[in-house]
Structure formats: structure tokens, C-alpha cells
């Protein structure tokens, strides 16, 4: 379904980004694997993608640095000459309370999680111009719910969701669809690390052992929705934040085992 499409997935050496990269490759897309710190993992993802019979290209870039974003898109431009799909997935952040958050932590998180979405999109659109495209960004429930130690990331995700709506309208005349997918706790290395921190703060009150759907969200659950948003079937979905949480955000007082 995505045959002959070129896709960039930022932060795709592992976790949700890797699952998205693999899913898009399964659908036939050539994929650019962007990583920041884990080269071996990125190369493994590329190898797994190539085994599906499509092209994978590994590009190192800290998306928190505008110069590195430019270098990455220069490489994409010279290697592929176009881009059909841009998935803004790379994210970072420190577990801090608001009163402990310093400017360094704020800027680091906002630069990687929110500013990069704007700067990458500006460059991606140039490579989509005249042909249309799909842009999907990865958000989280922390954009509108208060989660322990999540203030910096939550703020950055709220900015990213607002930007999703503005971009969806601004880029609509160019045939570019822009949407977001917001997940609850996902079973990735980063997700489990966060869960440990949250558990330390909340103890027994930690709510996310599972979801009403019977298990935690897996990276593939997010990837499946991202792939749908990249399909033509999703053409009329614009500027939406699609929640993938097994129903978690609907039950603020915990799970009702009776189902009601």
C-alpha cells in the first residue's frame, strides 16, 4: 500500500519509532532510520527493514539541534530527492517536578519534542511539495493529563498537539495530511523506565499495570494507527489527536472490574 513511498521516522532505532519504521516497511515504504545515541540499534532496525525487501537508510541526527536537522534533510534530499511520509517520533525528557525543572531541562525537552516537529516539518514539506504527503507526530496522554514527573514532556506534547492542528490547516492546500497519535504507557525501554520512576512516586497507587483492554499498549499498537493515518483511507482525517490507550484515559478513578 505504501510501495514506492519514502518515509522518515525520527528516533527509530528502538521502541515506538522502530515499530513504526518496520510497519511502514512492511507496507512497502523505503524508510530513513534516524537515531541520536544508539547506532547499533539503528543499524539492526535498518537490517530488519531491508530483509523486507525495501531500502533503509540510517541517518544520525540530534533533532534538538537545528543544524543537525538541516544536515539530515540535506542527506534525504540528495539520497531520495523526495519524501512522502514524515513521522515525528523522537522524544526526550527528564523526570522532574515543575519546581525542580531548570531552563536546561526545559529547553532540552522542548527543542527535541516540540521545536524539532516544526523545523523538520518545514524541511519535509519542501520534499513533499507538489505531490502531497502524510505527517504524523507521536504525542502522549501527558499532554492533557497530569502524570508524575512528566511536566516538561507534558508541556512539550501539548505544544506539539497544538502545532499538529495549525499545520493540518496550513498544509491542507498542499495535499499534506497532518495528525497525531497519543499513547498511554507503552511497553518500550523508555516507557518501562518511566514506569519505574512513576511507581517510586506513587507506590501502590500506580495505575498503569494494564488497561481496560486487558494489557498495556505495545509499540505495534501505535505503529498500526500511524500506518493507517499514512494511508489514503485516512485522507479526510486532519489535525486530530488519535488516542491509543486501551481505554485508560476514560477511567480516571481506576479500573472498574465489573465493567461499569
Amino acid at each position, binding site marked *: 500500500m505504501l510501495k514506492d513511498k519514502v518515509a522518515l521516522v525520527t528516533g527509530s532505532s528502538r521502541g515506538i519509532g522502530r515499530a513504526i519504521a518496520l510497519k511502514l516497511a512492511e507496507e512497502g515504504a523505503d524508510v530513513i532510520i534516524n537515531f541520536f*545515541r*544508539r547506532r*547499533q540499534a539503528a543499524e539492526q532496525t535498518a537490517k530488519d527493514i531491508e530483509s523486507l525487501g525495501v531500502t533503509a537508510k540510517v541517518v544520525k541526527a540530534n533533532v534538538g539541534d537545528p543544524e543537525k536537522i538541516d544536515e539530515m534533510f540535506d542527506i534525504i534530499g540528495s539520497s531520495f530527492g523526495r519524501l512522502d511520509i514524515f513521522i515525528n517520533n523522537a522524544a526526550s525528557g*527528564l523526570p522532574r517536578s515543575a519546581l525542580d525543572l531548570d531552563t*536546561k531541562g526545559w529547553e*532540552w525537552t522542548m527543542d527535541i519534542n516540540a521545536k524539532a516537529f516544526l523545523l523538520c516539518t518545514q524541511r519535509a514539506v519542501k520534499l513533499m511539495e507538489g505531490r502531497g504527503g502524510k505527517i504524523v507526530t507521536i504525542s502522549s496522554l501527558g499532554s492533557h493529563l497530569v502524570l508524575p514527573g512528566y511536566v516538561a514532556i507534558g508541556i512539550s506534547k501539548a505544544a506539539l498537539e497544538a502545532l499538529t492542528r495549525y499545520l493540518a490547516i496550513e498544509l491542507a492546500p498542499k495535499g499534506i495530511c497532518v495528525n497525531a497519535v497519543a499513547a498511554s504507557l507503552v511497553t518500550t525501554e523508555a516507557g518501562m523506565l518511566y514506569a519505574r520512576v512513576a511507581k517510586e512516586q506513587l507506590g501502590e497507587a500506580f495505575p498503569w499495570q494494564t488497561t481496560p483492554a486487558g494489557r498495556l499498549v505495545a509499540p505495534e499498537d501505535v505503529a498500526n494507527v500511524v500506518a493507517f493515518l499514512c494511508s489514503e483511507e485516512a485522507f479526510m482525517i486532519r489535525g486530530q489527536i488519535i488516542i491509543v490507550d486501551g481505554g485508560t484515559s476514560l477511567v480516571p478513578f481506576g479500573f472498574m472490574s465489573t465493567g461499569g
Partner: protein
Amino acid sequence: MSATEETIKDIIVKIVHCDREILTPTATFQDMKADSLDMVQVLVALEDEFGIEIPDEDAQKFQNFGDFVAYMQARIAEKGSA
């Protein structure tokens, strides 16, 4: 003391805001009171300064400042001979 070691110290002191004197070969990152963000920023600054790549897979093996300097010197020498 090598120029490489001095440059590494300059970068750590600037980013972590620790005293230069504590950067002995046996000093750990806990001794420097560096958090995970400090460490990533140090690695990124060193990568830019020396034009090499320090993946997390390697960085996770450093036990102390001495290991770190030895690794950097080896990588820079490797780059020079490449």
C-alpha cells in the same frame, strides 16, 4: 596531561558545573553530580568537538573519568589513522 584530556575537562566543567579539581582518573559521574541530561550533553559536545561518534552502547561502559579519557584518546587516534 594530554590536550585531549584538557579539552574533555573544559567541556565537562562547562556543562556539569563541577570543580575541575575533582576530575581525577578515578572520579565517577556520581562524584561530578552529573545527571543523565548532563552526560548526554557532554557526549554531544565531545562528538562535535572531536568529530567522532560516541554511541550509548560504548558510553554505558565508562566507569570513571579515566575510562572516558582512555576511550576518547583511542577513538581520536583511530580517526587520525583512518
